[in-house]
């Protein structure tokens, strides 16, 4: 899709926001990036137009099939954009550095930690969040399986687990119990609900295949 033709797009947007532009614009880099790399990328960045921030800038995200306009500072992560600007709080901020999986969303078909993606970099991508799955009255088979198998206690890790599970099953519709242990290894739970999660993933796999057959 061409985002430039989207009439909802704010006029200021030039479609050139990039990580390089962000880094240059803000003038500081994340601790994980070496200074040399920053220097090189900044030099390679296009002159005008790519420089944004540090104040908020308008962007458009494609979330659960709908374009959403929001104005965020370039340093805001996708996770924080969802939570603090769009009231989509299913994605939780826990480790905030790509370890625990509580912020998992699906982007262009792949599970990603939304705390490691800048909101401005998520433009033009198809973002699926847990809010796009069914709600409590019409649960997605994965959510239903998590409930059926008591795969949640405090529930703070659960939405991330549900999204990681959906992403995993989209790619591995017929997993073995061993596959589940590896495929869901990127999400952490502190209450210790893994026994329920193991069963839930297998049950969801069966239910989703059933749904496909029936539908």
């Amino acid at each position: 899709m061409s985002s430039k033709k989207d009439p909802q797009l704010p006029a200021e947007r030039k479609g050139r926001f990039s990580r390089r532009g962000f880094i240059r614009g803000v003038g500081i880099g994340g601790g994980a990036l070496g200074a040399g790399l920053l220097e090189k990328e900044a030099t390679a960045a296009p002159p005008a137009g790519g420089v944004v921030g540090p104040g908020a800038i308008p962007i458009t995200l494609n979330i659960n099939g709908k374009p959403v306009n929001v104005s965020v500072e370039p340093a805001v992560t996708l996770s924080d954009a969802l939570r603090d600007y769009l009231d989509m709080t299913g994605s939780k901020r826990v480790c905030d550095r790509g370890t625990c999986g509580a912020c998992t969303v699906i982007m262009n078909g792949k599970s990603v930690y939304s705390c490691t993606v800048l909101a401005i970099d998520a433009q033009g991508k198809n973002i699926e969040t847990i809010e796009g799955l069914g709600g409590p009255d019409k649960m997605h088979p994965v959510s239903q399986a998590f409930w059926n198998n008591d795969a949640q206690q405090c529930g703070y890790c659960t939405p991330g687990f549900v999204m990681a599970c959906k992403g995993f099953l989209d790619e591995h519709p017929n997993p073995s119990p061993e596959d589940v242990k590896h495929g869901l290894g990127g999400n952490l739970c502190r209450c210790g609900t893994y026994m329920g999660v193991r069963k839930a993933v297998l049950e969801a796999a069966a239910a989703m295949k059933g749904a496909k057959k029936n539908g």
Partner: protein
Amino acid sequence: MADTPDYSWPSMESRKAMGKSIKRLDGPVKSTGRAKYTSDLRPRDMLYAVYVHSPHAHARVTGVDTSDAEKSAGVKAVHVTAPAGTEVQYQGWEIAAVAATTEQAARVAAGRIRVEYEVLPHLVKDDDLSKATGRTKQGGEKVVGDPDETFKNAEVVSEGQYGIPIANHCCLEPHGAVIQWQGDKVYAWPSTQDVTTWATQLSPNIKVDATNIKVKMDYIGGGFGSKFGPDAWGETAARLSQKAGGRPVKLFLERDAELMIAGNRPPAYGKIRIAGKKDGTITGWQSDTWSTGNMPLPYIIDQIPNMRIKHDTVSINSGPSRAWRAPNNQQLSYLTCSALEDFAAKIAMDPIEVFKKAVEYAPKARVELYKYQLDKAAELTDWKNQWKPRGSGSGTVRRGLGLGISAWGGAGHNSNCRTTINPDGSVLVEIGTQDLGTGTRTIITQVAAESLGLPMGKVKLVIGSNDLPPDAASGGSSTVGGVTVSTRRSSVNALAKLFEAAAPALSAQPADLEAVDGHIRVKGSPNKSMTWETACKKIGPGKISEMGSFNRRQPAPGMNDQGVGGVQIADVSVDTETGLVKINHYTAVQDCGLIVNPRLAESQIYGAIIMGISTALYEERFFDQQTGKYLNADMEFYKLAGIGDIGDIKVHLDIRPENDKRGVIGLGEPPAVAICAAIGNAVTNAIGIRVPHIPMTPSHVLDALEGRIA
């Protein structure tokens, strides 16, 4: 007046809602991401607050300059919590906080606060008492019988060194609150295990009457004993809100601060000697231990006739200790059970038999229970065939089995409940409690439904606010014992009023009525019956609203109780080349009382074990001794167990009539106790030598195997 109603629980066989594995009521909102936790809230005009923390483990603040931060874009309030002169006692100590219109703006402004420190000498190492000069306090010595003579004349003396370090709670939802202080009123949405008394703890610090502090919390993302009071951040958020003209302020700790300052389980280290006979009889105990807190040894087997017990406390520059799911019991169980296993190995006896002899020294009421549980656990694990004497395995990967035992109280806390029955038949149950994820919502609703003879869906439950009938903190596994009794009593009381209203229409006495399957009917005459709704219409104008309470000082025999034991067995494989420990199977035999919901009870046990496996194998803080800095205050290197790290867990929950008769007993903590003990013993059994320090990481295992332990 009628006599006191009969509140006793319906018989096991007759229960319709209680005792059933009903799915947790908040499962759908949690599984779909719709549950709103405190950290998800965003009331209108909310400001985001960010803390500045001390980078030093021990220092004196000599200056805090906030002038640049105050001028920073978007900033609405700055509050200094550690002014010049403050002696900072640990890294992460709160110095100042900024509230701004966006979190990013608050972060930028926080970075502009200039703090000057005079750095002072620190102690961050807790595992070596010899380095703690001037930081220790001797706890004195307790002597029972004649330990010196006993050890001198003993047939066998075993001894060992054991250690279990500080662990961080690492709740997934960090500590924090959203607070609005407007005029003389404070609205607080904390993440807390204690909705009822949170306000009374904040009140004196901000000089606002507790009646003017409204507290509300729907969901909490983990507490585990670390989230009771308002803490420093509760007050800081309130003051920022006041300074910002009453706009709500959200202040949650970032992950590094969460690990540094919001939850430290005390460590325990020391040397233990056991004197005994070759037949496995223990005759003497000697322990010399230290911790940042008290560690009353020996655990469970405290009736040994001859003992010398010495314990020192040491203060280190690390975040304050907090209660952890069965406080201190993990440490005590680990130290005691490790020493028992070492004694068994010394006399070449099966540890099951040694433990069975040792529990003769447990409190009398539990001796037979532990023996029964040891046999049961041995049976479930096929111990007789699977267990091999210590170190008898060969090859690179060696298997071992190990034992741990536990004890916990679990008595109910003070609780008040109100049950309201409306003329339209709707039912409201209200308690100022909280559901930590243990399933409190579900079990309260089960008890109300059971008591009123209604389906679960007919009962509306409201919890999570200090406007409701007061409950108490969810700690000590006390919630279930309290809320079930208060709910039962208020519901029975309300039902008695409904019987009074309905009795004339059934030409019966209120005392002859019963509520079954959505009907009010005459006992013994099922034909003389009316639907719940018809009966409720007889209430007339107004409604029925009755209270029910449980007070700890007035025991409710048969309704709730305390005191459970447990035995757990770990089956592990240890790779002697890499030092890697893998859990094969983990088995728990858990004593219990009346179980309201077996599904939720089992989840508690699984969860407790998984959390225990995490501390036994992975969780370890690393400090730079020179700078005093916590190097892995994150979730990458402060490692938690994942879904593939826990082996297969088998739970034997001892649901049986004798236990049911005791009434309800809390279950969140008892199964969390024995895991380090069982896994430590299993590793030792596998490789033939003691790995003294938890966690059983490759580094610790290889140190032991290669004799690098002093």
